[in-house]
């Protein structure tokens, strides 16, 4: 007999949700997290979108350490001198809270404590080496020569899925599937943040930016989220681009973003409290590994469940939903025919029926668009020219809008036929 009904590897949102769900079904669960305390090795941009956490914690909005709810969502195109922003604010977000900014060090510690309270055996500060096999069946995990046995293992180890790779159940990550995220947390008084972002208490801002002004034409996306008394800010750069431009350093790009004339005033007098870097899986559907096998499932970032369409960047809600689906699959399998590759295949079915894999299918191929030169190199410049044409008073006779757009396109070297085609592609895929 196994020592545990299930072992969960990784104490982030996916792992803790899975563990809590398993414990709620009276299963004997071990959760192993490498960081001690949990969350201390984590880097997340920090907006928890959606309501997935209610699946394991109905009162999470009251009890979890949330910073601010997203009242204002921004999308911006930045050129060297200008920014063209859309800032959507709605009182509708007061009633239906759609996203909360979070600091993962706090959130992960809270989730691990909740898992412990729910009866999960939580072990921190130790790294699992690999899955333990008996033939083709996973029978537990291996660490420093010892085998800890369990009927099922849920791998929720995050964006760098070392255990899965070392166990031979998924291929190593490819450059084109990976982006590097670099983040800083900048301390500022709560009131200063409220004033600068036009927010009231508990209201927050979440913005995504196309950085069209970087040295050497490097393509990167920026993000900026308000916490209670700090700002999380960072950039995401595709690994492929980083390798192609080997004079590019991720911290340089963060500096360039921070020093942009539209961003710098928001951060003025702030103190950098922490900085960190991590992998972001952006391979989309094509990079998703086999999600289950005889005795194991992969959930969260480890499975490549994250979503980015250029307007929004999400991961935690996919992590939580997939963790819960994996847990439910174990519960059902144990109540039915037992753990087998066949019974765990229900996991993929569950994901196909939920937003997790649906979104991945709906937006397959989005990476070609979000990491394209149209968005990063052409679009910001064209938009800037159009805006300057409309709003800059230079004493010349005024022009029609179509004339301004035409000239802006011309100077960017974009053919309108190509733009139409690219624009249509983008419109369809977003």
């Amino acid at each position, binding site marked *: 007999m196994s020592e545990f009904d299930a072992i969960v590897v990784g104490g982030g949102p996916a792992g803790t949700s899975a563990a809590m769900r398993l414990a709620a079904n009276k299963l004997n669960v071990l959760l192993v997290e490498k960081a001690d305390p949990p969350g201390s090795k984590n880097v997340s941009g920090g907006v928890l979108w959606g309501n997935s956490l209610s699946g394991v914690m109905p009162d999470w909005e009251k009890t979890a350490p949330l910073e601010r709810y997203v009242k204002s969502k921004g999308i911006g195109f930045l050129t060297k001198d200008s920014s063209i922003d859309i800032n959507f604010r709605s009182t509708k977000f007061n009633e239906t809270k759609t996203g909360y900014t979070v600091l993962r060090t706090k959130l992960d510690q809270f989730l691990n404590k909740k898992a412990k309270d729910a009866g999960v055996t939580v*072990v921190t*500060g130790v790294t699992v080496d690999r899955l333990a096999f008996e033939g083709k069946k996973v029978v537990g995990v291996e*660490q*420093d020569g010892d085998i800890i046995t369990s009927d099922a293992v849920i791998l929720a180890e995050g964006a760098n899925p070392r255990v899965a790779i070392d166990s031979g159940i998924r291929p190593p990550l490819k450059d084109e599937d990976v982006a590097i995220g670099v983040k800083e947390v900048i301390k500022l008084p709560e009131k200063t943040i409220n004033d600068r972002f036009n927010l009231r208490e508990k209201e927050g801002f979440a913005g995504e930016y196309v950085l069209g002004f970087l040295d050497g034409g490097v393509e990167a996306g920026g993000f900026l989220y308000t916490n209670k008394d700090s700002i999380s800010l960072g950039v995401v750069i595709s690994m492929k681009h980083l390798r192609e431009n080997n004079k590019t350093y991720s911290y340089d790009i963060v500096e360039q973003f921070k020093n942009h004339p539209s961003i710098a005033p928001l951060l003025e007098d702030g103190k950098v409290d922490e900085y960190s870097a991590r992998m972001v899986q952006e391979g989309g559907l094509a990079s998703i590994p086999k999600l289950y096998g005889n005795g194991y499932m992969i959930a969260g970032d480890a499975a490549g469940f994250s979503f980015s369409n250029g307007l929004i960047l999400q991961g935690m809600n996919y992590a939580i939903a997939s963790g819960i689906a994996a847990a439910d699959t174990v519960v059902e399998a144990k109540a039915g025919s037992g753990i087998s590759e066949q019974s765990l295949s229900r996991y993929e079915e569950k994901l196909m029926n939920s937003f997790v894999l649906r979104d991945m299918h709906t937006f397959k191929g989005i990476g070609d668009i979000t990491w394209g030169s149209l968005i990063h190199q052409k679009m910001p410049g064209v938009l800037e020219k159009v805006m300057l044409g409309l709003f800059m008073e230079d004493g010349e006779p005024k022009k029609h809008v179509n004339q301004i757009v035409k000239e802006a396109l011309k100077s960017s070297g974009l053919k309108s036929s190509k733009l139409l085609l690219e624009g249509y592609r983008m419109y369809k895929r977003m």
Partner: protein
Amino acid sequence: MTLELVVLIKVVPDGKEVFVDPVNFTLNRSMATNVLNPADENALEAALKIKDEHGARITVMTMAPPFAEPFLLECMSRGADQAVLISDRAVAGSDTYPTSLTVAAAIKHLGKVDIVFAGEKTSDSSTGHVGPGVAEFLEAELATYSRSCRYEDGFVIAERELEEGVEVVKIPTPAVVTVITDSNNPRRATLRKKLNAQKKGIIVWSLQDVGLPSDWVGLRSSPTVVKKMLPFPAIERKGKVIALDMIDDFVKELVDSGIIKRGGN
């Protein structure tokens, strides 16, 4: 008969995060996270090495509030067999004298003991008193500043690292050995041992359990009086750069500034 080893540990604020308050010169520990005193990790490793070779039962012990529990479990996760937390409101404010007395009483309460290991000093107060103090109260032999030690038929053979050189001593058990920082590579905890430690838990003793009256300990029974603390003046570095191939210039510079002396002949 199984060797009985005791390892004394202390939970201290992480030295990298402690700073001196510029106004009243007290230590500000509010920003610091707690860690295991660095030399104690080496003390535990020294005990584990003897256990590897001879087999032994290792008891880790500390006198602290309940927040020390995870650190005791961590020691068990590296290979200690049991952990004792001496926790009692009455010991609050104790200096190294009543602390040594209490720890020695707890060791006696354990029963037979062969070797007690302790760090050479703690990183937060640096007195190095408790190890020798415990030896005194136990009437045991003592080897301080040990960089390595082994056990041989009722004796401890310890290499003591002193300013003048290395001294090798052979002392009979029961003995207390204090271990210098970074003298070995502490092993890591394993998942299996962590699970076992969690399952087993720690032993908590009160002052009454170890058989000491409460008026022998605590702030009032501590002879140390801290009058005031002064900051250590920062040394301004000269920041002079000398090229690597100008080693003679470098040596001359050191001699001229009195950092090193020219040899006799």
